Structures are given as C-alpha cells and as structure tokens.
C-alpha cells in the first residue's frame, strides 16, 4: 500500500508550482520552520496544503499572502505549532530511527565502495570488511553533524532566507572544517582495526531495519489518514 503521506507531499509539490516566486519563498520558509517543531509529518503536510490554498486564493484575488495571513509568518507558525497535534514518543522514535538507519546505511555503503573492501569483493570474492575506529568515529560525527545541520536550518529558516552574507560564509567555513575533520579522522585511523565482519551481515541488517521502519511509518501515516477522513 502506497504511503498516503507521500501522496499528499506530491500533491503539495504540484500546488507549490502554482505559487508566485515570492509566495513560494514564504511557503518554503514556513514549512521548513514547521519541520523544526514536534508537529507530526502528516499534520505539517495538511497545514502546508491549507496555507498553500490560502496563498493561491490570495493570488487569484490579486492580494498579497500577507494580506491574508498577516506579515509575521513566524508568529503564525508558532501559533500553529502550539495548537496542532504533537508527535507521540513512538512517532518521534520512529522518525529518528528512520533517519539514523538511512544515514548509517548510506555511510556504510560509501565505506564499502571507497575502501579495500570493494577490491576484496571484486578481485578475491571475499566479503570480509575491517571495522576501523576511524570509520566508527567519522560515522558518528557525520550523523551528529547531519542532525545538527537539519535542526539549525529548520529552526532558522526565516533568518537564513534573508541571505545574510556573514551567516552564509560562517556556515560554509564550519561545514568545510567539520567535514575535513571527518575525512582526516577516517584516513588517520585507517589502520586501527577493531574487528572484521562479513560486510553482507550489517548490510542485510540495515536494509531489513530500513524496510521495517518504512513499513511501520507507512502504516502509521495511512492510519492517520483514515482517522482524519
């Protein structure tokens, strides 16, 4: 069964295309900011659909979006965050697990493809993969970094869209420094092998975990849709 949340997202993406450039930027900032909240994803998409509808109707009336909802978009989002349905502990855990499994899975795949493991597989048919402390530390930093960047971007979407040059430069520098550090840790701790595993086992575990979490998320989203209809 297809994920109803994805369907709603696609519908909203199509609606976005009808927005004027100015309204599209406002909507992007608002949705981005709403994602920093504890509102559940399905409700965020419903809010997005309704706000986009308001913006489109305002366009058709030759009005500005601010005429319809006021010009303090952040305050409107704060009100919506306060009044909307909050994520349950299970929903939060599922969301974090999804991102975690996806992130670690991607980094694991990169590790296989860009290390000696791929050569061993192709040349010798051996699936043994050394797990180095460099890989573990750099993966940990990368995942923490990804969560932090996501939180920073969503919480400061309005400020960031003002194209503050100083903030942009600071961000680029910080981003470069952290990723260089991750890369250096990975390279310099290359030989600190902790243990060796058959690379197929963690891959199978991660793929299984991903499918399971995705199914649970889909089922939850579809249940919410039935409940809201």
């Amino acid at each position, binding site marked *: 069964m297809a994920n109803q949340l994805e369907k709603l997202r696609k519908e909203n993406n199509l609606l976005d295309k009808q927005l004027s450039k100015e309204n599209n930027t406002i909507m992007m900032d608002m949705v981005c900011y709403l994602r920093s909240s504890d509102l559940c994803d399905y409700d965020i998409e419903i809010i997005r659909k309704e706000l986009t509808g308001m913006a489109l*109707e305002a366009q058709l009336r030759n009005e500005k979006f601010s005429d319809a909802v006021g010009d303090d978009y952040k305050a409107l989002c704060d009100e919506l965050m306060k009044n909307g349905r909050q994520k349950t502990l299970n929903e939060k855990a599922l969301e974090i697990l999804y991102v975690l499994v996806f992130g670690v899975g991607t980094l694991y795949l990169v590790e296989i493809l860009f290390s000696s493991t791929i050569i061993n597989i192709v040349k010798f048919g051996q699936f043994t993969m050394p797990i180095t402390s460099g890989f573990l530390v750099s993966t940990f930093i990368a995942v923490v970094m990804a969560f932090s960047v996501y939180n920073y971007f969503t919480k400061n979407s309005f400020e960031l869209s003002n194209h503050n040059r100083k903030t942009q430069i600071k961000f680029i520098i910080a981003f470069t420094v952290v990723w260089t550090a991750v890369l250096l840790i990975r390279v310099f701790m290359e030989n600190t092998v902790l243990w060796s595993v058959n690379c197929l086992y963690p891959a199978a575990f991660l793929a299984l975990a991903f499918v399971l979490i995705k199914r649970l998320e889909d089922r939850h989203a579809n249940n919410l849709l039935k409940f809201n209809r």
Partner: protein
Amino acid sequence: MFDKSQLMRGTLEGCILKIISLEVTYGYEIMLKLTGYGFNDIREGTIYPLLVRLEKKDLICGEFKPSPLGPSRKYYFITKRGKEALNSFEAYWQSISVAVTKILSLEVK
C-alpha cells in the same frame, strides 16, 4: 495597555463554533463573516490556528473539497462535542457579559 489577545482567543473560538454550527463553511468565509459582524483586524492567519486547535479538540472536523477558485478548500463541520462546547460557551457568555456590563457601567466616584 490591555492585552486583548487572551480575551479574543476564547471569544473567537466560541464565535467560530457558532458560525460553523449554522452552516458548513471554510476559513476565508468564516473570516469574512467575523469582520462583517464587527471583528476588525481579523485575517485568515488569525483564525487558522484556532481552527487547527478546535479540530484537535474534536469540536469541529474538516474535509477538503474542490473550490470554484481552483485549490481545494477545507470545509468545517461541527461535531457533537462541538455542539456541547458551543452550548456551554453561550451559557457562560450570557452570564459573564451581564456581569461585565454591570461592572463597566459603574460610575467613578
């Protein structure tokens, strides 16, 4: 200066429930009705969070329907719990409005 936001929120919620109880309607139309009855400075952005709140409390429920203007609109219906909440709001409003009017009409000695 008197902070009117708290008073407005409770009052508006009751008025929105009343409007929705009379007919199935949508955000922009509710806003027009409220301004028509004298609630100035009301925008869709003012009432939308209240609609979300009322829906969360299961006092109203919404359904998307196509609109003649293009994008589908969310039309709101009052629920059984909403009707009960409206009745209690009306009764409470009658009692406090009489009391508040009496107090405000007192002459300063």
